[in-house]
């Protein structure tokens, strides 16, 4: 049986340094708020680096994501409405 994996303080410090370095880099996009054509130019640049460039999302995953979002929204909306009704009584 192998030694249990552990994260040392040295590991933490290493990843913290990488994070700080990344955060210090200049932004790769024109400053926000942007226009849609500025976003498009960045997207073209990003996609050039992806091989093959994704053109379509996963239909089933997208419908599941949007259904989940909708259910959450409707659940919260119902709770809001109940609260409003209780307050008006």
């Amino acid at each position, binding site marked *: 049986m192998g030694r249990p994996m552990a994260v040392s303080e040295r590991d933490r410090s290493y990843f913290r340094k990488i994070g700080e370095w990344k955060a210090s880099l200049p932004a790769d996009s024109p400053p926000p708020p942007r226009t849609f054509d500025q*976003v498009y130019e960045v997207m073209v640049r990003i*996609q050039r680096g992806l091989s093959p460039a994704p*053109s379509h*999302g996963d239909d089933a995953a997208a419908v599941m994501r*949007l259904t989940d979002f909708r259910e959450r929204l*409707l659940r919260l909306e119902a709770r809001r409405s109940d609260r409003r009704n209780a307050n008006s009584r």
Partner: protein
Amino acid sequence: MIDESLAAQLQALFGDGMDWAVVGGNAANLYRRDARATVDTDVLISLDRRTMQDVSEFLAHQGWAVRSMPEGGWLLRVAHPHHGSLDVIASETDYQQAALARAKVTMFGDIPLRALAVEDVLIHKLIADRYKDEADVHDILRTEPALDEAYLGKWLDEWGVRERYERIAARVRTD
């Protein structure tokens, strides 16, 4: 990805009315410090003036194929060989109507589109609550955007997402 041709189609379909807006990753990219890769285009619409069937027929004429239209007409997912996937989502809550009413006109060249205001992008992302939504909120807050605090605060409390927002905002302050 929204390019000039998709921008022109969205404008032809939805026009200058205040009842639609680009949402999701494309809207977040208007406000993030760094725009991120996003595949699907999401549009929120009000169905007062049209049905999802109308939208579906218009898009079919433009070469889009219907991939999914769940019962109740709240969602239409279409795909195009050049433009990728487009999700058209019907507004069903008071909050979504309020967000549509305050959406911002945002240009693609000389084509006016509508997109959620930054506060509503944050609220949508906080409700959706996936890893990449939290990353969007974090990256937007890093730009220190001018926020309508009263509006944002009202909906953070209504949706019960204030704690999530404060946690991410605190992380941004210590970055």
